[in-house]
């Protein structure tokens, strides 16, 4: 269910494009913020929670998820190069699963790892906040990658749709509208962080069990459906 050649083509494509710059810029920004906050305000668990929850998990992780998830397959579909991948005796679910693994790996590397480092800078893992948010970011990375990968097989405007989802739904509705909060990857990830962190600093609108069930279900269904879409992807040349 994994193909190393597909993986190589995917990560080289992901990191070789200009939009990959955002992959470096966002974590760099988080680290700069972490250093600045620590210098100005000292170590404070509440501030650490605000920075990691408000910026890292709510904004950076979904944005990097959009770049990695859509970038793992979208540009290939757009420019037609995926034809060279699909004209091979490789099962389509293998292609999707491999791309999901690469997208998740890239999101973890560029979102979860910097979250851990920023957490350590901000408060030295006080109340296990750094580990809690890094774990939440990693869990969210899987779900976002699967969702945005699917989005890229469904629409040619996957980046825009992904950004709207990430910024409007997750950031705005996710924090304001109650019903939307239950259907937010961010809240599911927060449930994981809530379990790990101490001191009642992290709270989620969703319990841990439903959160994990939803995370697994969304990831599985999105991946399955993306594989299906890829199998019937029409690659006719324009006439």
């Amino acid at each position, binding site marked *: 269910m994994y193909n190393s*050649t597909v993986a190589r083509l995917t990560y*080289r*494509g992901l990191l070789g494009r200009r939009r990959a710059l955002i992959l470096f810029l966002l974590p760099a920004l988080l680290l700069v913020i972490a250093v600045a906050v620590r210098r100005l305000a000292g170590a404070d668990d509440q501030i650490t929670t605000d920075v990691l929850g408000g910026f890292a998990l709510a904004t950076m992780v979904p944005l990097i998820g959009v770049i990695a998830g859509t970038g793992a397959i979208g540009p290939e579909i757009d*420019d*037609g190069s995926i*034809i060279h*991948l699909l004209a091979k005796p490789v099962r389509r679910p293998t292609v999707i699963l491999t791309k999901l693994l690469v997208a998740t790996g890239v999101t973890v590397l560029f979102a979860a790892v910097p979250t851990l480092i920023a957490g350590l800078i901000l408060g030295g893992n006080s109340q296990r906040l750094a580990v809690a948010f890094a774990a939440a970011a990693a869990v969210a990375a899987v779900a976002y990658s699967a969702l945005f990968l699917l989005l890229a097989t469904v629409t040619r405007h996957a980046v825009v749709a992904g950004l709207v989802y990430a910024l409007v739904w997750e950031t705005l509705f996710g924090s304001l509208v109650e019903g939307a909060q239950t259907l937010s990857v961010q809240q599911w990830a927060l449930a994981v962080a809530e379990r790990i962190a101490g001191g009642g600093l992290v709270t989620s609108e969703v319990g841990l069990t439903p959160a994990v069930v939803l995370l697994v279900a969304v990831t599985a269904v999105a991946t399955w459906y993306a594989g299906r879409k890829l199998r019937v992807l029409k690659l006719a*040349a324009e*006439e």
Partner: protein
Amino acid sequence: MTTLTLDHASRWYGNVVAVNDVSMTVGPGVTGLLGPNGAGKSTLISMAAGFLAPSTGTVTLDGAPVWRNEQAYRHLGIVPEREGMYDFLTGHDFVLASAELHGLKNPRAAARGALATVEMEYAEKRKISTYSKGMRQRVKMASALVHDPSLLLLDEPFNGMDPRQRMQLMELLRRMGDEGRTVLFSSHILEEVEQLAEHIEVIVAGRHAASGDFRRIRRLMTDRPHRYLVRSSDDRALAAALIADPSTAAVEIDLADGALHIQAVDFPRFTELLPRVARERSIRLFTVSPSDESLESVFSYLVAA
């Protein structure tokens, strides 16, 4: 030996019919799929390549459907018309990736062999983004050939190639056909198809218009009168000289447009006559363009014949 069979295959997009009830069998040797732009050639090639499901009918490779059948690609090599091809890779890495995806035992040797076949070893270390159109086309060929397929599908392979590259590719495809492979390529240029294909399938407006030996089709083509539009430094003198020769049937001086409309009946003789007459009489030719050479008119002529 691989045979591609279309059996009453149709494909439509919404209300638009791109391929209309086409049945054909493509066997070993080189077959040209000829038709004007928009005739449905690419749709047909896409169906044969398993990238598009026929709306009705079937497309099979030695009896097995191509659509939703990844295993068909073990026998199938595809050279798509679209340019997208992992530009960030070198030519070598692109072909190597193909060999690996085919699960070949020795992908490096296969990639080397395929690049040698298309004579691209000299540039294999360069990134594809730096390649000319002809080079890209050859690397696409290498990638399609790397697993030694028995059926090769090429969509407009000569587009954008210079004459030398065109000849090289023709030689290569001819060799593939001689080796007993089934080669199907599409083109909207009759001369291209004529030079390469033993067998021609003509498709016009989605319909299978003609099928057979190119000589028969070519004869139908040359038998018809050719119309030309010519502009020169002395239209009247040129007209007088041309009409005196039996290769022309009519010459009209279009005073409003400042041009000659010529109807030639002996095409080879006329093409030799026109420059000779102009040179002898010191007449400068500004425009010489065939006015009914558009493929649509050629094909409507063919279909009517």
